[in-house]
C-alpha cells in the first residue's frame, strides 16, 4: 500500500466504513486497507513537547525478538555501539514470550538434494548453546525451553556488549529528510528518545517502518495464544475411563507440554480492540479447556502452567521494500549477489503443479534488498515484516528465518553506521564479509 492510499483510507476507516476486501471469504491471506486504525470516536491534538534523548548509539534495534536479538548481537560484535529496545522483561519475543517454542526452518535441501542445516551464525549459536544446556529437543526444527532461551539470549547480548532497554515501547520516530533522527520510546519515565545512526525495525509488526512513512501491506492472518501444561508426565493412562485428550506437544521439560492454538482466522494483528478481544476470549477458553482435560479420568494432575504473555500474531505489516522475495525464488535456488543469509523451510508447498515436501524444499537465499525500505536512508527491517510475497509467509515468519534476517540486518546496520552511507547505497561486500566473519551461512 502506498502512503497516499494509506492516508486517504484513514478517512474511510474513521468514517466507520468497513473496507471491503476483494478476495473471496475463504481467503484469510487478505490485506486490510487501513491496518491498525480503529474507528475513531473523535480526535484530539497532542501538544508538542520536548523529549529528552536518553542515549545515543550507532545502532538502535527496536524489538527484542529472535530477529532483534540477532541483529543487536551482530551489530555489537561488528563494533557498533548498540541499543536493543524491548517492551517486555525478556528477550525472545514470540519464541519465548509467545511460547512458540519450535525453532522452525533450520534445515533446507541443497542442490544435491541433501537436507542440511542452514541456520548458522548467531541463530545457529543460540541453537547450539540451548542444545549444550540440554534445553532443546529434535535435531531438525528443535523445540526449546523458553526460560533457557531467555537465559541464553541474555548471556549473549551481555557478552556482545549490547545496551538493552527493557520495559519501554517504541512509540514513534522523528525523521527529517528521509533520515530517522530519533526513536521515541514510552517508558515509566515518560516519553524518551534514543538517537541512533541506524535503526533496525525488528518489531514484527513493522511499527518503525510505518512511523517512517514506508509503504507496507497489512496481512490478516489467524491469531492464537499458546499455553503450557504441567504434569503431563503424570497422566495415568490406565485409569478407568481414561480417554486420550489433546494435550499439545512435548518440550525439553518432560513434565511440560506446549499447546498451540490456530485461533480465529482473518484477524487484524494491529487493531487494539481485536487484540484485546482475542486475548480475553482465548484466556477464558484456555482455562475451560484445561478444566475439560482435568475432568477426564487420568488427567487429574495436569494443570495450566502458563498462558503466553504475548498474543500469537503470525503476520501483520509486511514491508514494501527494494525487493519482494517470492515463493518461486525460494523454490528455485535463486541466487542473489547481495544475499545476507539462507533460510530453510518446514512446510510442504505446491510448485508448478507438484508437491514439494518439507524435506525436499530447497534452502533459499535472502537478499539484502528485501530488508531495505524504499525511502528512509537509515532504517533496516528484519523479522517477519521484511519484504516477501504472502505465499512465502509460512517460511518467512518463523523463528529461524527471523534469526537469519536479524543477523543480516544487524551486520548491515553496523556497516552503514560506520561508513555513514545510506542503507540503500550500503557496501554489500563489507556486509557480507562481516557476516562471514560472524559465521553466517550465505549459500
Amino acid at each position, binding site marked *: 500500500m502506498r502512503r497516499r492510499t494509506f492516508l486517504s483510507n484513514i478517512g474511510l476507516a474513521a468514517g466507520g466504513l468497513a473496507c471491503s476486501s476483494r478476495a473471496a471469504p475463504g481467503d484469510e491471506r487478505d490485506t486490510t486497507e487501513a491496518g491498525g486504525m480503529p474507528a475513531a470516536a473523535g480526535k484530539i491534538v497532542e501538544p508538542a513537547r520536548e523529549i529528552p534523548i536518553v542515549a545515543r548509539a550507532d545502532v538502535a534495534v527496536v524489538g527484542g525478538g529472535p530477529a532483534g536479538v540477532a541483529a543487536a548481537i551482530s551489530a555489537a560484535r561488528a563494533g557498533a555501539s548498540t541499543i536493543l529496545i524491548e517492551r517486555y522483561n525478556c528477550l525472545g519475543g514470540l519464541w519465548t514470550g509467545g511460547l512458540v517454542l519450535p525453532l522452525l526452518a533450520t534445515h533446507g535441501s541443497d542442490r544435491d538434494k541433501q537436507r542440511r542445516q542452514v541456520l548458522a551464525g548467531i541463530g545457529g549459536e543460540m541453537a547450539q548453546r540451548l542444545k549444550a544446556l540440554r534445553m532443546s529437543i529434535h535435531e531438525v526444527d528443535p523445540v526449546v525451553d523458553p526460560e533457557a532461551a531467555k537465559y541464553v539470549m541474555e548471556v549473549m547480548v551481555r557478552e556482545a556488549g549490547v545496551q538493552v532497554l527493557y520495559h519501554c515501547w517504541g512509540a514513534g520516530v522523528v525523521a527529517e529528510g528521509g533520515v530517522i533522527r530519533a526513536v521515541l520510546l514510552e517508558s515509566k519515565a515518560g516519553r524518551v528518545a534514543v538517537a541512533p545512526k541506524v535503526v533496525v525495525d525488528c518489531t514484527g509488526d513493522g511499527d518503525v517502518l510505518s512511523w517512517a512513512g514506508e509503504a507496507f501491506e497489512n496481512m490478516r492472518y489467524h491469531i492464537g495464544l499458546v499455553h503450557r501444561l504441567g504434569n503431563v508426565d503424570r497422566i495415568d493412562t490406565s485409569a478407568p475411563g481414561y480417554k486420550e485428550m*489433546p494435550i499439545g506437544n512435548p518440550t525439553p521439560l518432560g513434565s511440560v507440554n506446549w499447546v498451540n492454538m490456530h485461533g480465529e482466522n482473518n484477524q487484524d494483528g494491529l487493531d487494539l480492540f481485536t487484540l484485546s478481544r482475542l486475548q480475553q476470549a482465548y484466556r477464558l477458553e484456555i482455562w475451560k479447556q484445561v478444566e475439560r482435560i482435568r475432568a477426564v479420568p487420568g488427567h487429574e494432575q495436569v494443570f495450566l502452567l502458563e498462558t503466553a504473555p504475548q498474543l500469537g500474531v503470525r503476520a501483520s505489516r509486511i514491508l514494501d521494500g527494494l525487493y519482494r522475495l517470492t515463493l518461486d525464488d525460494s523454490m528455485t535456488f535463486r541466487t542473489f549477489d547481495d544475499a545476507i543469509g539462507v533460510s530453510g523451510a518446514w512446510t510442504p508447498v*505446491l510448485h508448478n503443479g507438484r508437491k514439494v515436501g518439507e524435506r525436499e524444499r530447497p534452502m533459499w537465499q535472502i537478499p539484502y534488498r528485501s530488508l531495505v525500505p524504499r525511502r528512509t536512508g537509515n532504517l533496516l527491517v528484519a523479522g517477519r515484516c521484511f519484504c516477501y510475497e504472502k*505465499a512465502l509467509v509460512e517460511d518467512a515468519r518463523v523463528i529461524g528465518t527471523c534469526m537469519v534476517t536479524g543477523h543480516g540486518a544487524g551486520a548491515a546496520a553496523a556497516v552503514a553506521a560506520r561508513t555513514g552511507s545510506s542503507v540503500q547505497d550500503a557496501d554489500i561486500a563489507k556486509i557480507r564479509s562481516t557476516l562471514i566473519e560472524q559465521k553466517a551461512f550465505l549459500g
Partner: protein
Amino acid sequence: MSKTSRPIRWASLALACLLALPLPWGVFADFYVHLSPFLALQSFLAHMPALLFGLPAAVVLLLIIRWDRWFCRHACPTGALCDAASACRRKRRSWDAFPRVHKALAVAALAAAACGAPALALLDPMALFHGAWAPVHQGPTIAAALGVAGLAAVLLLSFLFPRLWCARLCPLGGLQMLAAGVRRTLTRAPAPMETERAPLRDPALGRRSLFAAAAGVAGGLLLRRAAGGEKPSPLRPPGALPEDRFALTCCRCGTCARVCPTRIVRPALDVRDPIGLLAPELEFSRGYCLPACNACSRACPTGAIAPFEIEAKQRLLIGTARIRVDGCVVVKGRECDRCVVSCEYHAIRITGGLFDPAPEIDAARCVGCGACAVVCPEGVVSIRPVGEFSVRTRS
C-alpha cells in the same frame, strides 16, 4: 503407392514419432491425433452441434475427397509401420478373398457415432499409434502395455498377412474409400483402374453399407445401454463428458496424459469397469489439476474431454475433496494451513472451536482439483467422485 509419396510418408512417420516423444511440443504435441477425419467425423456425429469439426481433420477430409487415399499414401505413420512389417516377409500369403471390411467398419462406426457411441474410434490408426507410446510417458505399467497392444496387433497382422490391415481392415482407409466414392458420385467420374488385385466392385453406398450402418446403430445403442446404469464414476479430467458417454467416446490415444503438465492423467485399469478400460482418470499423488490449464481439453481429438476455456474451470467438477479429520495436523493441535492456502478456489477454511479446529470443505466451491490432497502433509485428504452418475458441471 507411388514412388514420390513413399518418402513423404516416411518423413511423416519420423515427424509423428518426434512429436510423440515427451518433449515440450506445446500445441503440436497432439497434431497427429487431430489429423484423423475418422475421429473428427465420429465426434461430430456423436456430439453435434457441441463440437466444431477441427481444422486439421477438415483439411485432411477435403484432401481425401480430392485424392484417393491421400492420407494413407502421404501421412499415415501407422501405415508406414505396417508397410515395414509387411516388408519383413518375402513370401506373401494370399488374402485376396478377404472381404473389404474397412468400408463397412467406417460406415458402422459413423452410424454408431450418430447414436452417441463412437466406440470404433478405438480402431483409428492415429489412436493406435499414439496409444502405443504410453510406456514412454508412463513407464512400464500394465495399462501402458495394454496401450501398446493395439498397434502391436496391427503390426503382427501386417507381418502375417502383408498389407491386409491397410487394404482391408483400417476404418480410416475405409473412410477414404467412402470419400473417394463421394467424389465420383458428385463428379460422375468412372472408377479408376484398381491398383489392387480385386477390382472395385461396390459403390459408395451399397447394400453392404446399409447392413453395416444397421449393425452400427444396433451396436451403438447396445453399447450406450451397457455404459449407462448406476455405477460410481471415476475421477475424469475436467470437462469430461458424462460417464456413460465418456468411456465410449474416448479413443484411448493417451494424448491427454501426454500433455498434462502435472502428469496426473493415467489410463484407468479397473476390471469392474471394462467399458472404461484405459480411459483417462486422474490420480493425485504428486500433482494436481492446475486452475489455469486446459491442455487435456485442447488435446483431446474426440471431444470426450470437451473443449473449455480456463474461465470455465471453476464450474467443471472433477470430484469433491474429503478430509479424514482425525488424521489432520491442525486437529492434532499442530501448525498447518497447507490445504487452506493451496486451494485456489477458496473452498477450505479452518473452522470449529479453539481447541477442536478442523479444516472444512465448502462443496459449493470445491471442484476436486486435488491441490489439497497433494499438499497435505499427513495425506488425509482424498478426492471423491462427484456422485453416482456424474454431473460434471456446476451452474
